[in-house]
């Protein structure tokens, strides 16, 4: 199982059971965000727009790297990576 840590920003913790981080399974950033959204639907609407795209002011990092400079939502992730929103 490929469990990856996703850090939840303060503003969204209330929509994620007040957790500051969750462990999710996924091979790409997109997988993780979809799982996060499925698990916490109230959180999803703040990171995805009505078309299901990441909101333009929402940035996602794999460790220190912005996914826009990697392979965006197709960026592969491993168990040692930390994803932050």
């Amino acid at each position, binding site marked *: 199982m490929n469990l990856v840590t996703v*850090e939840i*920003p*303060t*503003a*969204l*913790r*209330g*929509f994620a059971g007040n957790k*500051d981080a969750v462990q999710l399974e996924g091979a790409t950033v997109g997988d993780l965000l979809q799982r996060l959204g499925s698990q916490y639907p*109230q959180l999803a*609407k*703040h990171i995805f727009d009505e078309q299901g795209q990441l909101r333009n*002011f929402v*940035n996602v*990092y794999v460790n220190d790297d*912005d996914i826009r400079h990697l392979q965006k939502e197709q960026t592969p992730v491993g168990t040692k990576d930390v994803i*932050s929103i």
Partner: protein
Amino acid sequence: MKLVVPAPLMKQIRAHGEETYPHECCGFLFGQQDGETRTVVEVRRQANERTDSRENRFLITPEQFRDAERAARKAGLLMLGIYHSHPDSPARPSEYDRDHAWPWYSYLITSVGNGTSADSRLWQLRDDRSGFDPRDLEVAAGSPGPDTASTTARRAT
């Protein structure tokens, strides 16, 4: 939800708005939450990274956000919200502010008229993103800290 800001920190926030006038200032509010009360214990100034329209827009970059979240986490504090100034306009969120806001955060806006800070008001984005609601802002006397005695209270209307 109420936000308590120790007077010395409120002074810093208001001074920041005057220093950057006629441009908008911005920064983070770090602190703690106990039930329905949030208390600011640290104010972190940020540079307004807009390269245009800085008189009515501010930009905090994703890197600034990321670093602040990490710093708050490391310090055992919460990033409670964001402050910014409105040069020569009321301390009310604009449509632009709403489009770029996060839920939960406390948004502290200070109106700066002719270079002098005036009204400071507190707002919070509704969970459905339909608008902002006013929140109570309390300026407390003494040094920064959750135990500071409060002396004044005001509610944004």
